[in-house]
């Protein structure tokens, strides 16, 4: 039967933190994300025979988790789709950063991206996968990943510019106020 060696189990465990971060970005909810991770691990263990030793365990688990999420998501039919800012909401448990206005704006903006763009951006920009690995995880062409990432970055820059000009910070507003008062 399944042949989960201690080495493979350790590889799984060390992939868990990043897998969770990815799951949260997909589901927009910490509890659901952890359930997804658990399901993905269960499925991975049951199918450990199909894992090619020496290949990237993390990428394999990400693929499984993403597929699980998508099949579940299709069933639930966009239940959370209109919950604007759901990702930002889910991260409220991290007060040290939620208090930071820049972070809040960033998360809200990230939430507004189409799911496929957000996913590609996270795999490349945060999880640290190569374009090839991300393409394998998302089961699409490398060029598709590249264009999704580019569109995601452009859109994010646009969204963030609306709120706080080119420097993301409150400086723009402050400057505007200062210049409006006209003395200085």
């Amino acid at each position, binding site marked *: 039967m399944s042949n989960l060696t201690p080495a493979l189990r350790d590889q*799984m465990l060390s992939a868990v933190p990043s897998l969770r971060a990815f799951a949260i970005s997909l589901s927009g909810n910490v509890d659901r994300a952890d359930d997804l991770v658990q399901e993905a691990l269960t499925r991975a263990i049951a199918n450990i025979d199909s894992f090619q030793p020496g290949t990237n365990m993390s990428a394999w688990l990400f693929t499984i988790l993403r597929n699980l999420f998508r099949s579940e998501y299709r069933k639930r039919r966009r239940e959370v789709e209109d919950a604007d800012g759901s990702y930002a909401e889910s*991260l409220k448990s991290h007060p040290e950063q939620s208090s930071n206005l820049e972070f809040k704006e960033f*998360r809200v903006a990230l939430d507004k991206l189409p799911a496929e763009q957000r996913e590609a951006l*996270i795999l490349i920009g945060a999880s640290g996968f190569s374009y090839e690995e991300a393409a394998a995880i998302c089961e699409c062409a490398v060029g598709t990943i590249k264009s999704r990432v580019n569109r995601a970055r452009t859109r994010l820059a646009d969204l963030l510019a609306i709120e706080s000009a080119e420097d993301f910070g409150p400086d723009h507003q402050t400057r505007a106020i200062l210049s409006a008062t006209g003395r200085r």
Partner: protein
Amino acid sequence: MQAESSQTKPRGRLGRDVQSKIGQQLRAMYDDVVSEGVPDRFTEMLRQLDETKDKGVGS
């Protein structure tokens, strides 16, 4: 006022500073979760698996 036109940025082209800022925010957000490590529930889960295996399933 001349200042206005010189301030507008070309569209569809991201400045390097904007790009790197996006990258930073993205990683900081992600790493915030990563830094929580492996929750007990998953360590437990994989440990229990070992025990089940040792006992043999369905005797």
